[in-house]
């Protein structure tokens, strides 16, 4: 206490955090809501560790060893991997073409009319809302449903997977792009708009320098998800590793399945490396 000046508080009123009650309320509310949900989802983790169930699981996992290594299968695996990468990459590229323009229209960060507010703000509001609604519809329908539909139209093969990914992921990317652009520092873009710059200029000079890293990282993460999603769609005949996995599982060939899973692991690691590299380049 030596030398420190203690500021005397008014004695009778002890200061309390005025937000404490609200915080406590939020925690209680979350518990009250979560508990019935866990019951509904039959969440009983203890069941996993009962003796009989442990045997079942170890038996299932033991079937996966050793991984299949026959040259013939590895050839198939390589072809399927390339196909999966092609589906995911083409799907994400198409999704980008859908998402980028919709995000630029939908984001409030580039709204000229909200400065002031000026003329055309109701029109702008309506346009943004309808863009958001479109994005919601695109991503609300699971890609597997789109895939089932396109397989019927286009026949078995990767094309159906690509289209299904493009639509659903276009919706997801668009929504998240919109929000990333709104959550970065929007003052530079606003200043440019208030100086008469166009929306694309304000985007490129005001928002992207701040948001590029996050946008890239999310896009690469979505590419990784697309790799996994293309597997699920393979189960309904949309080609790639999924189709191969489907066949192996149906023949109860655990060794082949585990080789395929190892490839997944490598692909996820690859996505991580790409993301890290791009973030570094944009830092």
């Amino acid at each position, binding site marked *: 206490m030596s030398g420190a000046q203690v500021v005397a508080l008014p004695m009778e009123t002890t200061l309390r955090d005025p937000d404490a009650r609200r915080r406590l309320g939020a925690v209680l509310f979350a518990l009250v809501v979560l508990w019935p949900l866990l019951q509904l989802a039959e969440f009983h983790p203890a069941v996993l560790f009962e003796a009989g169930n442990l045997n079942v699981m170890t038996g299932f996992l033991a079937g996966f060893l050793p991984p299949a290594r026959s040259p013939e299968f590895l050839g198939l695996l390589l072809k399927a991997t390339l196909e999966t990468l092609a589906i995911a990459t083409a799907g994400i590229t198409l999704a980008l073409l859908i998402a980028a323009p919709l995000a630029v229209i939908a984001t409030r960060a580039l709204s*000229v*009319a909200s*400065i*002031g*507010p*000026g*003329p*055309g703000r109701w029109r702008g509001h309506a346009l943004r809302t309808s863009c958001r609604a479109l994005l919601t519809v695109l991503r609300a329908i699971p890609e597997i449903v789109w895939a089932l539909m396109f397989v019927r139209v286009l026949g078995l093969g990767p094309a159906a997977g690509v289209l299904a990914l493009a639509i659903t992921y276009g919706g997801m990317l668009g929504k998240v792009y919109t929000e990333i652009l709104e959550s970065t*520092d929007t*003052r*530079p873009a*606003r*200043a*440019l708009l*208030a*100086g*008469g*710059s*166009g929306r*694309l*200029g*304000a985007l*490129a*000079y*005001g928002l992207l*320098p*701040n948001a*590029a890293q996050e946008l890239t990282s999310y896009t690469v993460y979505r590419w990784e998800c697309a790799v996994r999603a293309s597997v699920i769609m393979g189960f309904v005949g949309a080609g790639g590793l999924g189709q191969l996995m489907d066949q192996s599982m149906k023949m109860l060939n655990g060794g082949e399945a585990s080789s395929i899973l190892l490839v997944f692991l490598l692909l996820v690691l690859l996505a991580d490396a790409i993301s890290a590299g791009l973030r570094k380049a944009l830092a």
Partner: protein
Amino acid sequence: MALVTHQLGLEHGNGLRALHGLELKLSIGERVAVIGPSGAGKTSLIRLLGCALRPTAGRLELFGANPWQLSAGDLRRLRTRIGTIHQAPPIPPRLRVITAVLAGRLGRWPAWKGLLSLLYPADISGAQQALARLDLADRLFDRCDRLSGGQLQRVGIARVLYQQPELILADEPVSALDPTLADAAVGQIVAEAEQRGATVLASLHAVDLALKWFPRVIGLRGGELAFDLPAAQVSREMLSELYASEGSVVPTQGNHPIALQAFGDGGEARVLRIDNSRGLG
């Protein structure tokens, strides 16, 4: 007239009155400084005049038109004629200096030119000239996050010089600069305006800068006009009354609050004699 306001007022959403009943007229080519204690409404005034905020009362006319009655396209064209220098330059830190300066002309360039300029700068020499006037030409290709606060503020000024607007609005444009640089920077803004016949309205923290560079000085207090006079007629009493809420200390350069000593009432005295030994006078 470059700018006319009639009973201009601004009330924030929370009921706080930022400006009230402002009557202003600026002819084309005029240079006006706005001074006043913090919270007087200087920034609000500049945002109103720059069409970044809409007045809640009264009328504003810029170059003979009410900006808020224009169509979206006309409002945009009007905004390209106004250049605002912000106190905290709104420049993303990852941007290169040259890109930050070239952004000044985004309003006049077609969109494709602005986007192409990101691949290869569209006007290197133009940006360099603007920066050279603020003694920053050597930082042309540096990233803005390598700059100090004062250097960044000068990049913000260079952007507006490069924009070549007809109306320059400056919101404490030299608040992060040391006295010598601040004087030179204000001098460049004034020179640019004189050369092109542009109108300037600048809010300044340092009263001595306002009196030195601007023929007309406006005192703003509590959101209302305290005085609007030729610089030579601004008296010591007016200033100490203007800054009464800050202990009548008239702020000058270098953030050394000093007492006003010799200040000819209505005379020619434009230079403050600095006396640090005496404390508040």
